[in-house]
Every structure is written in C-alpha cells, then in structure tokens.
C-alpha cells in the first residue's frame, strides 16, 4: 500500500518566477515527514508538487523528477487525476463538501471515475474509514447529517477519513491543524501517529512542537530573501534537526531566533 517518494533536482516555477529551487529528498514509506520553515519559503508549494495539485494554478510547472516507488509523476502521459487518486491531500482548512452528508463525504472519492460500490461494501468502507480517522464513535448516529455541521476538528478528521477511504499510497497534509483548537489538534496528531502504520505521511506545519511530536524526519526549508527561490536547507531525523542541526539557519529557526 504505502510507497516511498524520491525527489530529484526539483524546480518549481510560477510562470517565470522560480518559487522552489533544487530540491532533493527521499521520503521513506510508512513514516511521517514534516516540512518546516518560515512563511513563503515554498514548503506548501513543494508539498503540492508531490501530487500535482500545484497545477491548479495557471502557469505553475516543474522541472525535475518526483518518483513514487520509482515511477515518475511527471513522465509523459501521466494523468494528474491518477496521481491524485494515489496521493491524497488534507488541506489547511477543513473542507468537507457542504451539500453532502457525512457518509457521502467519506464515499466522495470512492465513487469517482464511475466506480460502483454495493451498499454493504459502502457501509463497511464508511465505518472502516471513520474508525481509521478516529471519528466513528462521534458520528455513527448521524451519518446522514451534513458534514458541515461538525466541529472544526471533526470536519478535519472527516476530511482525513475521506482521503483514506480511497486507500492512497501517500497522504499529504498542508498545515492540517492550523485552523483547529488544541484539543482537536491533539486528536489529529494522535491520528497521524496511527496513520503511519499504513501510509506514508508528509505534513507541512508552522508549529515546531508539532513537527517534533509527530514526525520521524524533518525537512527545513528557507528563503534567502523576498523574490528569491525557496530551498531545502537541511533534511535529517527529527531528533537531529531539533537537538543537533548541522546548519546555522536551521538552529536559529528551531530555537526561535527567527521565523
């Protein structure tokens, strides 16, 4: 199920503007990798290139390779739709479909591409996905109520359930807790710890404690100045990044001296 990601010499452009330059990184399967760095350093942009979601913006393009267990996402003839069905994404703000019930939200991705699913299979999948997102006990009595009626933290876990329902290889999370209160954040962090048993998880976070709590490895991104491209400065075990980083900028950032 879960697959590794290897990125080789990746440059990301918005039109002519080079947003992220020269990223090389190897992300292990069944692990949690955190991207940290100051605002505007390109970590979210880079995350989006891992499932080609950056292409939603007109003019965005990349150079280089992103390999999912050796298969290049940017090879000729690769459909971004296929890529995204294998590499799921959870966003900064919870975004369940407001017109769908909780149940339909979970099944939204499964029913795509004209796939059919029997009612009993669907019921089982809804339960399994919601269990997997630690949400089942809270919503099992109101599966047909709208997803937008849940609290922010519950909505975010619903989005995670929706992402894992399609059984992706990798789950990308773009600051998944930045709109949540501390209790909900804790619930999502617990969930991330459980998810790594089955999935490769990559998380962008502004919260360094969070990176320290949930991730196995941490990548620090930085930017030399406004208008300059973001770069991957250092990538190592989380422990090393936070206790004994090899680059001065990393140390300054994780110790709170800037950023």
């Amino acid at each position, binding site marked *: 199920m879960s697959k590794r990601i290897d990125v080789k010499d990746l440059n990301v452009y918005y039109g002519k503007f080079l947003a992220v330059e020269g990223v090389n990184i190897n992300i292990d399967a069944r692990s949690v990798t955190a991207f940290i760095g100051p605002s505007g350093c390109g970590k979210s942009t880079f995350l989006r290139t891992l499932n080609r979601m950056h292409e939603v913006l007109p003019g965005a393009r990349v150079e280089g390779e992103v390999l999912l267990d050796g298969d290049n996402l940017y090879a000729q003839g690769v459909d971004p739709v296929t890529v995204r069905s294998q590499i799921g994404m959870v966003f900064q703000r919870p975004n369940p479909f407001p017109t769908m019930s909780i149940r339909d939200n979970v099944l939204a*991705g499964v029913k795509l591409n004209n796939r059919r699913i029997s009612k009993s299979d669907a019921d089982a999948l809804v339960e399994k996905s919601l269990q997997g997102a630690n949400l089942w006990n809270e919503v099992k009595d109101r599966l047909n109520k709208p997803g937008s009626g849940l609290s922010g933290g519950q909505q975010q876990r619903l989005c995670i359930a929706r992402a894992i329902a399609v059984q992706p290889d990798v789950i990308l999370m773009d600051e998944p807790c930045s709109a949540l209160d501390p209790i909900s954040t804790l619930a999502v962090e617990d969930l991330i710890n459980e998810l790594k048993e089955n999935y490769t998880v990559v998380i962008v976070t502004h919260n360094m404690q969070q990176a320290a709590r949930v991730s196995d490895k941490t990548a620090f991104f930085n930017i030399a100045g406004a208008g300059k491209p973001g770069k991957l400065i250092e990538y190592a075990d989380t422990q090393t990044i936070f206790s004994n980083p090899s680059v001065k900028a990393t140390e300054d950032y994780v110790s709170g001296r800037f950023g």
Partner: protein
Amino acid sequence: MSSNSLTSAGASGRTGDKVFSGFALGAGALILLVLFSVATFLVVQAAPTFVANPSEVAGGEGFWKYILPLVLGTVIAAAIALLIATPVSVGVALFISHFAPRRLAQGFGYIIDLLAAIPSVVYGAWGVAFLAPAMAPGYQWLADNAGWFPLFAGPASATGKTILTAGIVLAVMVIPIVTSLSREIFLQTPKLHEEAALALGATRWEMIRMAVFPFGRPGVVSAIMLGLGRALGETMAVALVLSSGPLIASLIRSGNQTIAAEIALNFPEATGLSLSTLIAAGLVLFVITLAVNMLARWIVGRHKEFSGAN
C-alpha cells in the same frame, strides 16, 4: 454633577449612520409601495371584467374561457424557452468560468453581456425576418416525419411564425441573463471545495459536479427564474414573431398566443370593458410570475440543512 463621559462622546459621528439607515429603509419601503400600487391598480381596473355578463367579455364566454388559452400559450412559450436556454446557458457559463483560457473567457463574457443589452424589438425583427423562414422547412420535415406526435402535428406553418419559433427567440433572449448570472456564481465556488474534489482524484467534470454545481445550484435557480420572468413577460418579440390563433397542441402550426402579446396587440383599440379585460389578463400574468417565484424559492430552500450556510 457627575457627567458620564461615555454618553456625550461620539454622538456627532452618527449623522451619516442615520442618513444611510433612513435611505435604506426608504428604498426598501418604496419597492413594497410600488408593488402594492401595481397590484391595487390591476385589481381595481380588472374588477369590472369579473362581474360583467360573460357574453359581453371578449370571446363571449366569460373571462376564464378567454384567459385560459392565453395562460397555456404563455406557459408553453416560456417552457420552450427555458428548456433550450437552461442547458445552453449553464454550459456557456461553465465554459467561461472553468474551461476557457482566461483571455478568451473575458472576451466571451463581455459578448454575452452585450447580448443582454439588445432591445427585444431587435430580437423580434430577427425572429420574423430570419429565423422564421429558416425554420419553415424544418417544420415541414417534422410534420412529414413526426406528425403522429401531437406536438408536431401538421399542416406545418409555411411562414414559420409558430409558437416554437417564438420560444426559440425567447430562449436566445433569456440565455445572456442566465449565462451572466450563472457565470458569476460559478466563479465564486470556494477554491477549497474545488481543490478537495481534485485532490481526491476527480476529473474536471467530476470536480464541477461535486463542488461547483452544489454550490451554484440556488444561484442558478434564481438566474433561471429571472430568465423565466423575462420569457413570461416578453411582449414585443412574441407579438412580432408569432402568428397568433386559438390554443392548439401542435408547436409547428400557426396558433397560440401569450398574455403579454395579446395585451400589446389589442391595447390601442381597447376601451371600457375590453380594456378592463386586458388589465385582468395582466393581473393573471402578475399572479403566474409570483407563483413561479415562490415555487423557485421553495425549491432552493428545500435543502437548507445541506446548503453549506451553517
């Protein structure tokens, strides 16, 4: 004497607030007043028709016998217009909002807005001078090949001045309105929902079905209702295009008439009771429009829980 500094301060800055709230209240009240006056005018002026001896009303068999074919004619013409205009408008709006390259989309949107500004008499002239003759052979073909179906029963109109032609002209007039509003709604679809669908592996069309349509549905229904309002009330184009007559089921024969065109054609010579009858016909149109709008509100409000407003 102890004076509270909070009571006196800041009162001078409130004048603008008061002026604006008064203005807003006045504007709101004015709308109600105008609507009420129109309704009152229609009811008072139409009253003689309802109490008159049935044999004296146009047609000689009372007002309801007179108005029923007109109501049906109006509804048929408007229904044809909407059946054509809705899919086309939603398609064009989607093309502009989600498919066309940005530069093309802007020019396209501008052209659509221009179409909405063309006076209805021009559409009518186009309908009678170009569309009707162009449609006539098609009607003949329909009568020959699908004549067994009541809607296409012959003999087909040789001039093409039929209710179907009128409906098509109305559709062309309604399309810019519905397109313009739908496009605005579609463009406002939250990026968040579009990205949610795409990130699940949705194709562009699936993303539109999952995120854009559910978000835009109430707005598109409102847009269609505005279009329907224009189709129901359109006078000039129908009066020019349609060769009117008694109510018939066939869409490709001369015949049928709409309320608005009937009023316009007969108004210049109307006096006394016949004038009152025409105004009563206007009252009926008013009521139909009101009913249709309430129906639309009900449709939109039915799924309030799932509207995303909570």
